[in-house]
């Protein structure tokens, strides 16, 4: 049976993790590779790196982070941030990433999703969708945002998801900008609405405050995976606590197990 995935996310700028990280037994918490190693040994199912660097030099640093991580963490890696073209994707994949997330480029020109899928295979193309709730009353609606949630694209998020899935997205990384950083839990209505139109896996992002929130995203929201950053980095929730909560809620998880000889 396919297992629900728990995915720690690292924000990286100029090759260093940016969100404050407090990890016991970690010599250099600013080094994304050290952090990746820690999550690897905790039994994380995947890792996600989001590059928030603006400069060209910083991009090179990100590639080096991917290479160093892939050289010693033999687990799935997703990389996002600043990816514009199919060739950008190839560069990331050759460095050791397994999946590459595109965001702004897919909003500006959705057909880029098709070009990427044709070039690297649908399974490697993640479309990162940042959304905010529209203020109208009645049934909830969400709009697509770019530039780290600051700029409205004027597009309905659910329609956008339907569109990019039909164009070749292999996975949706769905972030509620309303919930991001609030620790109030994922936007379950958003996840449910996306689930109804998406035939590809959905990663829930934005709002995790505890392990129960993650379980809810799976069993109520219908997500296939949960992503979180700071609550993992600050040790508020461990990967295994998250998995145990998801298992208690009745969804299948991969619990760490020693290999037999």
């Amino acid at each position, binding site marked *: 049976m396919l297992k629900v995935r728990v995915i720690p996310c690292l924000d990286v700028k100029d090759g260093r993790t940016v969100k404050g990280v407090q990890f016991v037994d970690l010599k250099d918490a600013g080094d994304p590779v050290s952090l990746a190693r820690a999550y690897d040994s905790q039994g994380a199912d995947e890792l996600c790196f989001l590059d928030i660097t603006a400069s060209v030099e910083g991009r090179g640093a990100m590639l080096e982070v991917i290479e160093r991580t892939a050289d010693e963490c033999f687990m799935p890696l997703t990389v996002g941030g600043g990816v514009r073209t199919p060739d950008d994707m190839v560069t990331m994949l050759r460095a050791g990433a*397994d999946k590459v997330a595109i965001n702004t480029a897919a909003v500006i020109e959705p057909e880029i999703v098709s070009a990427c899928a044709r070039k690297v295979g649908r399974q490697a193309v993640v479309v990162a969708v940042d959304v905010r709730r529209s203020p109208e009353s009645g049934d909830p609606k969400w709009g697509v945002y770019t530039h780290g949630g600051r700029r409205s694209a004027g597009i309905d998020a659910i329609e956008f998801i339907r569109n990019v899935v039909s164009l070749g997205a292999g996975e949706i990384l769905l972030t509620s900008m309303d919930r991001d950083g609030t620790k109030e839990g994922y936007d379950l209505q958003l996840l449910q609405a996306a689930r109804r139109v998406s035939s590809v896996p959905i990663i829930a992002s934005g709002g995790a405050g505890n392990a129960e929130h993650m379980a809810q995203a799976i069993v109520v929201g219908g997500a296939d995976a949960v992503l979180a950053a700071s609550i993992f980095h600050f040790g508020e929730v461990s990967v295994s606590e998250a998995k145990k909560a998801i298992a208690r809620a009745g969804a299948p998880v991969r619990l760490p197990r020693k290999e037999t000889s």
Partner: protein
Amino acid sequence: MTRIAIVDYGSGNVRSVRKALERAALSGTGNVSTIVTDDPDELRSVDGIVLPGVGHYADCATALRNRSGLIEAIHEAVFTHGRPFMGICVGMQLLATFGEEDQITPGLDWISGSVGRLRPTPSHLPVPHMGWNTLITVNDHPVLAGLGDGPHVYFTHSYAMTPLEEQDIAARTDYGGSITAAIARGPLFGTQFHPEKSQAIGQRILANFLNWRPG
């Protein structure tokens, strides 16, 4: 010294495969060196061959065929000299007779079968089949030895191989139906999942491959 070639035909994550093999080699006896190559002469001289592959079936098949003498060299190493071969993901699917991704594309036809789109039941299950799933060995094989109970491996694919002969299936997994997870015939072995991304279980599989001497 055991020399293992990872075939670089412009498709697939050769770097991850190489690093994972090098790490797996540390757990075994004997020296292992890896090379990344598309040179037919080198491929004829190595002790084992790994064929990775991600992306579109037709693109991978074309890339392989466009490299002069490459397929012939792999064929000679495997079928004349009995060198162990491991295909990973599309690198495994290429062993089939044909693939059905968008169009019918001839494969190598070294293991009779076809590669078709996943159609899980119930139909609302997402495709790609993405994540960790349980590997179920159906025919014991040295490469799958010692994995313990209910090992998990990492899958990410929308198409899967269906061998014509049931006995060519070494392992399967369940995702709204049975999916071929590993195939084996003589010196040929292939995985639909990614051993290079499957943490400790993947490491064990790669170490087993390095120690495997097809009889």
